[in-house]
């Protein structure tokens, strides 16, 4: 049964607003840091907002081979990431239920299903290639993601995301944080798994699927992937941050950790090359083994 709790609704609305407002900024900061590493000045951190505005001013065109699915896919993807925003308390309000782990994981599944369908719509090989690779990578990264989250849920004996907040602040949590960090990178389609900046057919996964879009619909897709990145980093931070009672201080610490994570993502992206597609299984397998090791350290006494 769905219980409606007014304060919970308020918290959800605040979370959604924060995610919507700040997710392009995160992308902008990452780009800025990357440009410093490449000895460039780089665009302003507010550039993603301008890009989104530009997209929304343009005309929408889609492929003539596509059907109604192409038109609705951006909205479905966007709505499922927003649902993921609501389904976990990254601000750390520890009341209310319904924050459960499995639904949160499957929010990404909904988005992935439809974005892959949209990629297959156009009839060109690029979209199909993107979809097929996306599904392959998801079959590799989802299990690893779930190993980490299940290990954490096992350490607190609950599959409620509320009680899992700050559960990674422990010795085995270090191992888990490494694998979780790799998953954050992989799922937000960054190097070494996917390249967010190119449209070269050999190196694109996420960009390949939305190649045929333009204008507002493409804008929604870009916004959605920024949202996804924001949610993943927020999840990472809220799980692996220390548990502090004082609310304001906790938010502040989380904010600092968030910035640190963003810096790390940009740094990693600047120093690693893109990995070959068929090197990925081994890469993810190693990441998963880290999670398994952490479980062993936790519980085998």
């Amino acid at each position, binding site marked *: 049964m769905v219980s409606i709790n007014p304060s919970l609704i308020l918290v959800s609305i605040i979370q959604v607003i924060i995610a919507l407002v700040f997710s392009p900024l995160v992308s902008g900061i990452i780009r800025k840091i990357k440009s410093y590493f490449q000895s460039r000045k780089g665009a302003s951190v507010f550039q993603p907002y301008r890009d989104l505005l530009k997209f929304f001013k343009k005309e929408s065109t889609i*492929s003539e*081979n596509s*059907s109604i699915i192409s*038109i609705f896919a951006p909205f479905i993807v*966007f709505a499922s990431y927003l649902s993921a925003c*609501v389904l976990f308390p990254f601000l750390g309000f520890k009341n209310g239920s319904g924050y459960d782990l499995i639904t949160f994981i499957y929010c990404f*599944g909904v988005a992935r*299903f439809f974005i892959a369908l949209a990629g297959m719509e156009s009839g060109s090989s690029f979209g199909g290639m993107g979809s097929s690779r996306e599904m392959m990578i998801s079959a590799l990264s989802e299990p690893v993601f779930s190993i980490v989250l299940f290990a954490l849920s096992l350490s607190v004996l609950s599959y409620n995301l509320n009680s899992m907040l700050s559960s990674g602040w422990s010795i085995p949590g270090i191992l888990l944080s490494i694998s979780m960090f790799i998953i954050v990178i992989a799922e937000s389609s960054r190097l070494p798994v996917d390249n967010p900046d190119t449209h070269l057919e050999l190196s694109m996964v996420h960009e390949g699927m939305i190649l045929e879009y333009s204008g507002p619909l493409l804008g929604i897709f870009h916004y959605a992937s920024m949202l996804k990145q924001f949610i993943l980093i927020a999840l990472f931070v809220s799980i692996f941050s220390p548990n502090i009672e004082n609310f304001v201080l906790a938010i502040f610490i989380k904010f600092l950790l968030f910035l640190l994570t963003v810096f790390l993502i940009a740094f990693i992206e600047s120093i690693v090359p893109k990995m070959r597609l*068929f090197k990925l299984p081994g890469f993810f397998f190693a990441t998963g083994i880290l999670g398994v090791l952490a479980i062993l350290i936790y*519980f085998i006494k």
Partner: protein
Amino acid sequence: MIDLGFILFYLSVGFYILGAIVPLAFSKNKTLSLKIGSYFGLTASALGFMSGVFIFLLPNPILFNLLVIAPNIVLQFYFDKLCAFFLLILSAINFLIMIYSLEYMKSYLNDNIAKFSFFYNLFICSMSILFLVSNSITFLIFWELMSILSYFLVTFEYRHQHVRKAGFFYIFMTHFGTVFIISGLLYWGTFSNGLSFDAMKIAAMHMSMFSKSIIFLCFLIGFGTKAGIVPLHIWLPMAHPSAPSNVSAMMSSVMIKTAIYGIFRFVIDMLGVGPIWWGSVILFIGIASSLIGVLYALMEHDIKKLLAYHSVENIGIIFMGVGLGAIFSSMSLYTFAAIAYCASLFHVLNHAVFKSLLFLSAGSISKIIGTRDMEHYGGLIKNMPKTALSFLIGSLAISAIPPLNGFASEYQIYISMLNLSYFAHSYWKLFAILSPVALILTGALAAACFVKAFSVSFLALPRSSEAKNAKEPNLMIILPEAILAFSCILLGLLASNILFYISKILLQIDSNFNVVYFQTTNLLFFIIFGIFFSLSIIFGKIFGLFEIRKVPTWGCGISLNSKMEYTAASFSQPIRRTYSFFLRPHRKITLNPAKPLDILFSEDLKPPFTTYLYSPIRKFILNFSIKMRFLQSGYVHFYLAYIFITLVVLLLWYR
């Protein structure tokens, strides 16, 4: 009230038998016999459904002796909620399939339709009696009837050789399973007086754990063969595609669930709680089945074979629930056990709904295009939007996408697995935590598979002229699909209510199985997602995002044609390569020197079960038979001598 349920059930059986026999009288007039058979079947399923409702509402189970078939063998019915649940699924699905058949079987008017009606209605009839009988011998009789009648349905198009081969394989495998069921039941019967279920249940209380384990293993192999667990699954992808689509829908959605019914009835209800390794074995088999089933499904291009492999996967998920429940029962955590059992029963229902939906829509497509190979489909969403929508909903449900029903039951299984990991000890914690990870992997691969199936069949450009000129089938085909698609959504949203009713079934089996509260998340997700989706759509309307210009796809300067699209084979290629250690793909490239542009490329899989398990056994049996041939000399004297020797040995033995 009580009488009404029984009377309706007998009436429905009578109508099934009428629906089997009356069309034979009209077999000259094909359309008429088809109509008669289908309408009788419709009536019978409606009656069966109503009787199922009445039986489900009975407060206590009722034993009802009908007639004595032979000394000590009574045809007795036992009406309880478990029977009623399966009877309800069977009747509901059959009702819709009968509507579908009315139109679909018209393409078989050159064949003997009356024969089809005869076998089909008797097949359903034997299944519905099978769920209610309460005596081992009668159970076996109807089990065997069900197997043989379904064999005739599988080989309905017996003129094709591959169909005959599939039929032979099917009947061989199903009898292989039946042997184990018979041995289990008879061994059990040696402990009890009589073979009625009550007597056996009482006997099970005083059996040693060793005998119980032998019986359990017999049932696991026997019912597992019928269910199609790995490695006994190989008849499924052969038999299901060979049958007409309405039959494959029936087989996939209900017939393989008779095995689940058998496991629930014999193992959980009658055999009682066993040691912890029973549950672990079932859980392990479930995980293996689901992973292997979905991997093979990904490699298939034949749409019905793909769906058959997905049956293997979903049976694996159902087995996971059963195994978890058994483990929890062994640990005496009855509430958690009940949640896991409910999850698996709920998945039985859900799988029946979405699998029949997928089979029906796949059947209508393959009938229209004239092939089951997905590489000839494409672009069907433009001409067949309704079929496409129902197939999409089925795909979403089977890929466990919230808020549909597939997610609702898998969610309960996830919760059970996580609960198991909280209660397990030391190293078992690790295995318990890896089982939901395996389920997540299964879900991801299933989603990949259905993205492939849906997009290759329905999206982009048509790959053949038949696909280009496809027409939407008429209302009688669309209607059952639409109802099933609607129930997919409804079952997902009403998950907590359905689970509440299902928990009543388990409460009747054992009063310990008491679930107070199910945590479901579908409705919550639906509300949240719905709010955001409608908000974004409204936003899109206001800002004019739906004013879209359609332009040709950029094909790098060349005009696109359907040969340049991504095919099903290329879609699954990365996954084939990722799991190549298991799938063993090997490529064949043949070049024709006379025609430089004539290159044939094929990539086949090496199926490990047939290569490493079935072929050696087959070879061994054949060689052994050839060696033993000398016994069959053909002279009567020798046979008399055999009889004489046997007699002497037996006399000495039982002196």
